[in-house]
């Protein structure tokens, strides 16, 4: 198991990640951790869910194991499987098992993308039993108090077909994430991309404009992440309009009129 130890250490977050709390989410998450409750984060893309988890893992000093869910993710991808090595069948822990054993934080990103039968394996872990049965080994792992399960999903763009089952939902402490308030978001952009505050504010204004286009055919507006990327390009010497076009306008849409409209906003703001 020394191999697993080393791998776990890679998941430990040494330096403090930058995270600006929007409300009292950090306190709630810490309390949930103390009480052994699982966490559900929901919010639009690029608004800081993953960063929040990193920050939480650092604050709690636990390794963070992130699994990006997809529709082929099977139970054994999470729990583990037998592998053949040199003619022998060797058991290999999956990320979830690894996190339970080590008392780490297991973060299932975009959990609704996973197959329905897969999400069920987290059920016994996510209620007061806090245990993970590994059927193939006949083992029942009981999670240590430090272990925490966190899942995230984006309620914005998934279809009705991909919704969390109520039986899954109702096991979690849920935190709703939105884009931060203008001032806060500007500060985040400032801090992450090192552009000056005035520029950051204008970038945020652009993002706010795109976010109000929901009914005009843009399903999701520019995220904080896009703004930071734009800021980074600008800091690297790219001129502002080009940086905005490359980092904000083009990623948002393929519709030429929508692109022209967002481009107009950029031109109007800077």
């Amino acid at each position: 198991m020394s191999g697993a130890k080393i791998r776990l250490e890679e998941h430990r977050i040494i330096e403090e990640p930058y995270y600006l709390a929007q409300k009292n989410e950090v306190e709630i998450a810490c309390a949930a951790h103390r009480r052994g409750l699982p966490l559900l984060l929901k919010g639009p893309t690029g608004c800081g869910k993953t960063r929040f988890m990193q920050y939480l893992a650092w604050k709690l000093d636990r390794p963070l194991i992130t699994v990006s869910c997809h529709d082929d993710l099977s139970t054994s991808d999470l729990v583990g499987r037998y592998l053949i090595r040199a003619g022998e069948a060797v058991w290999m822990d999956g990320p979830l098992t690894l996190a339970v054993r080590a008392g780490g934080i297991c973060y299932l990103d975009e959990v609704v993308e996973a197959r329905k039968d897969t999400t069920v394996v987290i059920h016994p872990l996510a209620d007061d039993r806090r245990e993970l049965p590994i059927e193939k080994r006949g083992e029942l792992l009981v999670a240590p108090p430090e272990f925490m399960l966190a899942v995230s999903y984006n309620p914005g763009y998934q279809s009705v077909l991909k919704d969390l089952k109520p039986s899954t939902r109702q096991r979690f402490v849920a935190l709703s994430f939105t884009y931060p308030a203008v001032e806060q978001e500007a500060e985040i952009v400032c801090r992450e991309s090192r552009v000056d505050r005035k520029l950051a504010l204008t970038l945020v204004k652009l993002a706010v404009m795109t976010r109000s286009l929901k009914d005009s055919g843009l399903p999701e507006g520019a995220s904080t992440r896009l703004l930071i990327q734009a800021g980074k390009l600008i800091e690297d010497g790219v001129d502002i309009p080009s940086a905005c076009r490359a980092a904000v306008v083009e990623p948002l849409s393929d519709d030429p009129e929508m692109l022209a409209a967002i481009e107009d906003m950029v031109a109007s703001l800077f």
Partner: protein
Amino acid sequence: MKLPELTKRFNQIVAPDIPNEWDVEEMLEPYLDQSDDVCQTIFWCIPAIWPISNGLCRDFLKILPELLGFVPLAQLPARVGEILDCYEMQGLRAAQQFMRSMESRYQERGNGSGLVLLGEVEGRLLPFIRGVAGRDLMIAGGNAVFTDTETIFLPPELAIYPKSADNILLYKLILAFQWAFLEIGSFTVFDSAEQDFKSDPEGPLWLTSFFSSCSDPIFARDCYSFLETVRAARFLERELPGLMRAWSALPRIVAPPVQEADPRATLLLELQAELLNGSLLQIQSQSSPTVFNDYWRRLTCEGASAVDTVHAVREVLAAIFDGKEDGGSGEEYPGISPLIFQGELRLTAIEAVRRQQFLRQGEELVHSLALYLAALPQEKLSQLLRSEEEKQSGASGLESDVSMIMDSEFAGTVDEHQAPLLVTINNEEVELSGEMAEEVRKFREEFGHLPGRFVSSAVGRAGEGVAPDVQPGNEQGGALQAAICYDEWDYRRLGFRKNWCVVTVKDLPDLKSGFIRQTLGKYHGVVNRLRHQFEMMRTTDRFVRRQRDGDDIDLDGLVESLADARAGLAQSDRLYIKLLRDERDIAVIFLVDMSNSTAGWVGNTIKESLVLMTEALEVLGDRYGIYGFSGMRRTRCEIYHIKDIDEPSGDVVRQRIGAIGPREYTRMGPAIRHATSLLGKTDARVRLLITLTDGKPEDYDDYKGEYAIEDTRHALLEAKTAGIHPFCITIDHQAHDYMDHLYGPVNYIFVNDVRRLPLRMPEIYRVLTS
């Protein structure tokens, strides 16, 4: 071409309603000496216009020789499309005008004048202003620039600058300024110093009464409007610096200084010019009276509001009329035209919109309030009703009796938003909670107060059991649903004929007949086999062996690989077993051609096929709908409902299949479009549209030949764009001639022997979906 030939072709096109001979001659006369190319093009255009409007077609033919002088022949179809669009939007007269103005339009474009049509750029302007404003403003073309707070009216075309990019910029500038007026509160200004004005959402705005109270209302309005434009410009410099910079880089179109006799007009015109050349706020302007300088100073610091402008207007008026008796030497102030981005100040339009909003939102509020009150305990409600009745029978005019919503005693304290709201109806108090209170609060914030009559009518409605605007039961009556309009593709015009086909959905009578029993008996063995076959296709979890990775070890693979290793062969790495889940998530619509030609045994075989198909599909569990289609002319396209996608199958559905019978013609386009819209509403991963037909698309009117084929093809393309796989089963022997073009070579199947269709169809479906 010679006249007889022309006439003959023309008559062929417009048949059956052939105009008088001399009429035709007159129409075609100009084309006698035209080349064959031109005539071809003309005969290409006529069928696109004639069915839409005969009159328009006559006018078109009259004006066409002129048009050909400057419109290249190749561009003509596109221009025809524009003309028809214009006709459909604004009618015949507008279309005639449009045709006449085409020449100047063309010349302008040719000369590099950057004419920009609103229609061309609306698609980008709308999201632009909505994004900037953060709410759903509308854009519309109008004869003047102004806003009624919901819609911004723009000139339908701009050609002020020689470059079209600059004209687009001007459009954006107009939008930005109109938005700025909304944002800085130019229209909702209210001078709190005036106590006697009572704000009433249904009455005039405070501004209206302010202007009329001035000694020179029109000058006051122009002055206010201009000063607010300056303030809006300041606002935009802060909010949209890029736009304002781009604007200041544009060459100034300053109107030559008109020598106005009236000093007031001269003053404003000079100021306008200064605003345009940017000198207004920078230098201490010489021309303006000192009151303006005061105002500019106030503008430079943040927080200047519309009230400041109102004061400035008062001061300007006072300064001008100071020293003059009876208000400016009796001369009438002529009024000036506003700057293009400034637009007009149309207070009446704003008032109308505000009234509408008030009534609309009031109605919504009344409705939810009534629901809320109706949910109250019975005795409380009846108490309320009693006191309401007493009030109405008694002295009704008493103000104090009016139902009101008041804040409870917590009002004004720190947590006003948590305080419960009380509705006092006469002397009965009802506490509003949660969402309802929030709604009431919002309404009052928006409109100042909640009139008592709203509360009264809510109480009344609650007593009647709520909801006068929801009348259940209406939709169930009659087999006929509301008609739906669909566009039709005209290949000559390369555009849609708007709302061309009227589709009505009808129910087939449930016909009690022995047809189904007979069919099931006849195909007894086949049905059993089909059931078995289709059962095998149902959702299965299956293990796939010998995978590179998987959930478990594949022992066979492992043994083999170890044996290989012992034997000194290369080992396989495919040692795992994987669980694959094949979920069938399919929705399918069968469109059955019910044209006249299917009479007799052809129709019967189609029905038999459907019966077998439904048997198979019931086993399979795929969602499916069946519709028949037929009709005559564009105004009567009929869709016969046999089974909706989510409707359970049963005897009724079978009886409806039995009732399928030959009707009229085969107008395929609207049927396909209707099916597309139905399939669009399902969430299945695979969506299929299977058409069963016995021949070409054809209708009684001009829906024939190439037109019909092209429209059908376009409808199928639309279906494909919507993520639907169209497929066709045909028994037409000539099918290969046009089906390749319609569906593509692999997406249709021709069943040679009609009698085999019932057996083939489930097979075809099976192959299609597995």
